[in-house]
């Protein structure tokens, strides 16, 4: 019984602390739909640091990296974009432009108003 209990504890500890997740405040909006966790993700945290697939990258390199990712024809063209809600337009506009220029489909992640 004790062994099973500790195994369950370890499971829930790991489930509640996802690895490699960048902390940021997602924007809120009404009428959002559920989105699939696609293969590609671009994240920009509260300091304007950009991450592609979990790796820290300069924004200037984003177009090339996304194009390289899409070279595999099996890859989904959707790119989940997560940007901190307090970042100014002059900082995050290049992310949208880069995904669009690389031929990706922007899937902008947010949270529904009223949720935490």
């Amino acid at each position: 019984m004790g062994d099973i209990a500790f195994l369950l504890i370890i499971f829930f500890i790991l489930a509640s602390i996802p690895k490699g997740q960048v902390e940021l405040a997602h924007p809120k909006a009404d009428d959002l739909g559920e989105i699939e966790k696609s293969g590609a993700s671009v994240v920009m945290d509260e300091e304007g640091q950009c991450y592609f697939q979990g790796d820290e990258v300069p924004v200037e390199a984003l177009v090339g990296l996304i194009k390289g990712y899409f070279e595999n024809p099996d890859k989904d063209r959707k790119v989940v974009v997560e940007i901190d809600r307090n970042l100014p337009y002059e900082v995050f506009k290049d992310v949208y432009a880069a995904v669009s220029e690389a031929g990706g489909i922007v899937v902008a992640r947010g949270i529904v108003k009223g949720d935490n």
Partner: protein
Amino acid sequence: MPLKRGKKKPAAEPNVGPFSDIAFLLIIYFILTTTLSAMMGNKLDIPAARENPKKSKKEQPTIVLSPEKLAWGKQQEDVTLRQLRVKLMNLNLSARPQGKRIVVLDCAPKTAYQKYYEVVMAIEEAGGVLGMITQRGETGAED
């Protein structure tokens, strides 16, 4: 007389009963604190950016967004987000051909992503295609 053999004293063993109590308390705690929420968002339609300064923008509805205000149209009429949604819905963008659905969003550099996101979601909800201004005076949108 038989010899009395001394009983072996049992080795001291720790009381493990409370361990399982603690384990179950921790299980309950992590069950309650773990949230397995789904990812929420929306797909955006953004054409590849191209410079097209000579293209007439008379037919394209324009939204001007800055930290202080949200304005609609060339007259820059001040609107709320709800009013903007109504105006976008009235355009009936989803019934138009693909090239006629562009809504130009002119955003000031200091505008926070939260405001930008709400406007972009409103455009998407109305069936529009986002036209970003990448440099002042030029739209990053194609027809």
